C-alpha cells in the first residue's frame, strides 16, 4: 500500500464522518461542523495528490488548499452568522423546524 492510498483512505473516512454528521444531526451548528469536516477531507486529498503527484516542486496543491481553507473560513462565518440570526428570530436551531421557505 502506497502512502497516497493511506492518505486517501483517511480522507475518505473523514468525509464519510462529516457526511454522516451533516445528515443525521438536527442542530444547525453540528451540521456546519460536519460540512467543515467534509471540506477538510477534500483539502487532505488536494495535498496528498500534490505531494505524490508528478510535480511536487510546484506549489499548486498548497495554493489550492490555502484557498479552500480561506473560502471555508468565510463560509463558516456566514453560516454561523445565519444560524445566530435564525436563532434570534425563531428561538431554535433545529433544522427540521426551519421549513418556512418551502415552495
Amino acid at each position, binding site marked *: 500500500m502506497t502512502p497516497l492510498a493511506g492518505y486517501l483512505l483517511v480522507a475518505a473516512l473523514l468525509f464519510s464522518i462529516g*457526511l454522516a454528521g*451533516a*445528515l443525521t444531526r*438536527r442542530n444547525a451548528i453540528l*451540521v456546519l461542523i460536519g460540512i467543515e469536516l467534509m471540506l477538510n477531507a477534500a483539502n487532505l486529498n488536494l495535498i496528498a495528490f500534490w505531494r505524490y503527484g508528478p510535480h511536487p516542486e510546484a506549489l499548486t496543491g498548497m495554493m489550492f488548499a490555502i484557498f479552500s481553507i480561506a473560502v471555508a473560513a468565510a463560509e463558516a462565518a456566514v453560516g454561523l452568522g445565519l444560524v445566530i440570526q435564525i436563532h434570534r428570530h425563531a428561538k431554535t436551531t433545529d*433544522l*427540521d423546524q*426551519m*421549513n*418556512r*421557505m*418551502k*415552495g
Partner: protein
Amino acid sequence: MPIVSAGLSALLKQSWRKTSATLAIGSLSFSLLLSLYAFAHVLSDWMAGIATREVVNFTWIQFGTSNVDLGWVLDPLSAIMLVMVSFVGLLIFIYSTGYMKHDENFTRFFCFMSLFAGAMLGVVIANSLLLLFMFWEIVGLTSYLLIGFWYQRPAAAAAAKKAFLTTRIGDVLFLLGIVWLFAQTGTLLLYNNGAGSIESAALSLLLSQPAALGLTAAGAIGLLIFAGAAGKSGQFPLHVWLPDAMEGPTPVSALIHAATMVAAGVYLIARVYPLMAAGALAGGTTTALTVVTWVGATTAVFAALIAVAQNDIKRILAYSTVSQLGYMMAGLGIGGVAVGIFHLITHAFFKALLFLGAGSVIHGCHEEQNVRRMGGLKSDMPLTFLTYAIGMLALCGFPLLSGFWSKDSILEAAQHWSVAKAPFYMLVFGALLTAFYMTRQMAYVFGGHWRGGKPAHESPAVMTAPLGILAFFAMTLGFIGTPAWPWFRAFLDGKTAEFDWHVLLEPGLLTLMGISTVVVLLGIILAWKIYGDRSPRPTAPDALEKAAPIAWGWLSNKFYVDEFYGATVIAFYAWWARVSDWLDRRVWGGVVAGVAWLFSMGARLNRFLDTNVVDGGFDKGCEELTVGGGLLSRMQTGRVQTYLRILALAVVVLAAILIWSYKT
C-alpha cells in the same frame, strides 16, 4: 425708412398685448409720431421733387421655385393714411377712456381697440396683397369682437355674427382674386422695382390674358378684389351688416364703422388702382372702374334714402356712412385715387366727430338712442351741440367746410365722366338727401324741447376735447384739396401744386359749386320746414310718414333688404340644410349603419373564435403549467437536510457510475 417700417411692425405686435388704456394710448401716440415722421419724410421728398415709394420686402415662405414675399411700402398714399388712422384713432382712444369708464371690461376693450389699430396700420403699409389680406382679416376679427363687445345682449351677438358672415362673402371673393393674381403673375408684392404685381410688366401680362365675358384677367381680378372691398366698406349688396354693427360701443362705431375700417375697402381699391385702371384708353374707363362707380353711386343714394327714415341716432349715422362710402367708391371709379381718398380723409374726420358726438349725446341722455325721445339738447349740451353741428354741416357739404371740397371734387369728376351722366345726378340727389336727414336728426336731437326721462347732462372734458379737435379739422381739412390749390392730388400724384385763385372763378366749376350749395341749402331748409322746432311726441308718426306712409314703410324697413335676404339666401340655406339633414339621416346614415353592422358582425365572429378556440387553448396551457408547478413545488420541502441527503445520494450514484465506467 426701413427703420420706421420695422419700428411700426414691432409696435404692432407690441400694441396687441397692451392691456390698459394708458399703454394703448401710449403705443398709439408713438405710432402717430412714427407716422408723422414717415409723413414728413415723404413730404420733404415731395418738396424736393422726388416721388417717394420705399419698399421693404422679405421672403416669407419658399416652396419649390416660387416665393411668397411680404413687405412694407411707404408712398404718399400710405403715409397720409397712416397719419389719418393713427390720429383719429388716438382721439377716439382718449374719448373712450371717458365713454367706457364705467364698463367692467375696460381692459378687454382697449386690448381689442389696440389690436384693431395695429391691424389697420398694417393694412395701410402692407406691400403684399397677402399681408394686406392677413391684416384685413385681423381687422375683420376685431370688428367682430368689438361689435359683440356687449355679448350679453342678443342683438349685439347677432350683429357681430352678421357682420362677420357678410364680410366673409366679400373676403372669399377677394381671396379668389388674390390667388388668381398670384397664379398669373407669380408674386403678390404690389411694388417690387418693376416686378410687383401692379406694376407695368405684370399688368400687360394680365391684360393679355382673356377671362370670361369679355373681361381681361386684370378686369376680372379687379372685380373680385372690389367684391372684398365692397364687403368691408358696406357697398350696396353687402351693406346690411354695417347699420347692425351699431350695437357695439359708440367709440367702436366711430373708430371702426366710420373712420377707419370701412375705409379699408376704399383704401384697397386705391392701392390696387393701377390694376383696376389697367387697359383704360386715354380718357376712358375700364369695366372694373365702371362697376365700382355704379355700385358706389347706387349705394350713395340707396343708403341716404334709408337714413331719412331711421330713428336710432347711430343708425342714421351708419346709413350715412354707407352712403358716404358710396361716394368714395364712385369717386375712385370716376376720378381716380386722389378724389376718392380725399373724401375718405375728410370723411374720417367729420364722421368720427359725428359718431363721438352721438356717443356724447347717448352718454348724456343715459343710454337713450332714439332721437325722438331727445330734443332741446342745444342748451343742455352746448359743446356737443356746437361740434356736432360743425360735423353735420361738413357732412352735408356746407360751403367752405371740408365735406364741401371733397364732395365737390367727386361731383366735378362725375360731371365729366364719359360713360354716363346718371351717376352725377344720383350723387347730387344723394347730397340733397344727406342734407335732409342730417338736418332732421339735428332738429330731433338738439331742437325743440326735452322729451326724454331724466334731464341730460354735458359730457366730461375728456370726451369733449377730442370733439373740439376733430371739429377743427372737419372745418379746415378741406383746404388742402380745393380746386384753387389742389395740393392733395398733387401730393398723391407726385406733382407740385400751384396756387391759382382764378380756377375757382371758372364758369363750369362755379356753376357746380353753386349747384351743390343750392342743393345743400335746399335739403337743410326742407328738413327744417318739416321738422324744425316741432318736438312731436315720441309715439306720434313722423311728419313724412303722414305724408307718404307706403314709401315711409319701405324706407324705415331699409327697403326690406334684410327680409329679402332672409327670404332668399337664408331660406335657401335653411332648405339646403334640411335637405342635407335628410340626406344625412336617410342616405349617409344608412350607409354608415350598414358598414357599422358589417363590422359588428365581423367582431362577433372574432369574439366567438376568441372565446372558444384561442381562450380554450390558452386555458389548457395554463392549467398544465399550474399542475406541473404544483408537482415541482412539492419537492421543495424547505428542509435543508433533505436537500443535503439527495445531494449525497446523487454523489454516491455519480461515484458508482464513475467507478463502473473506469472498470470497464
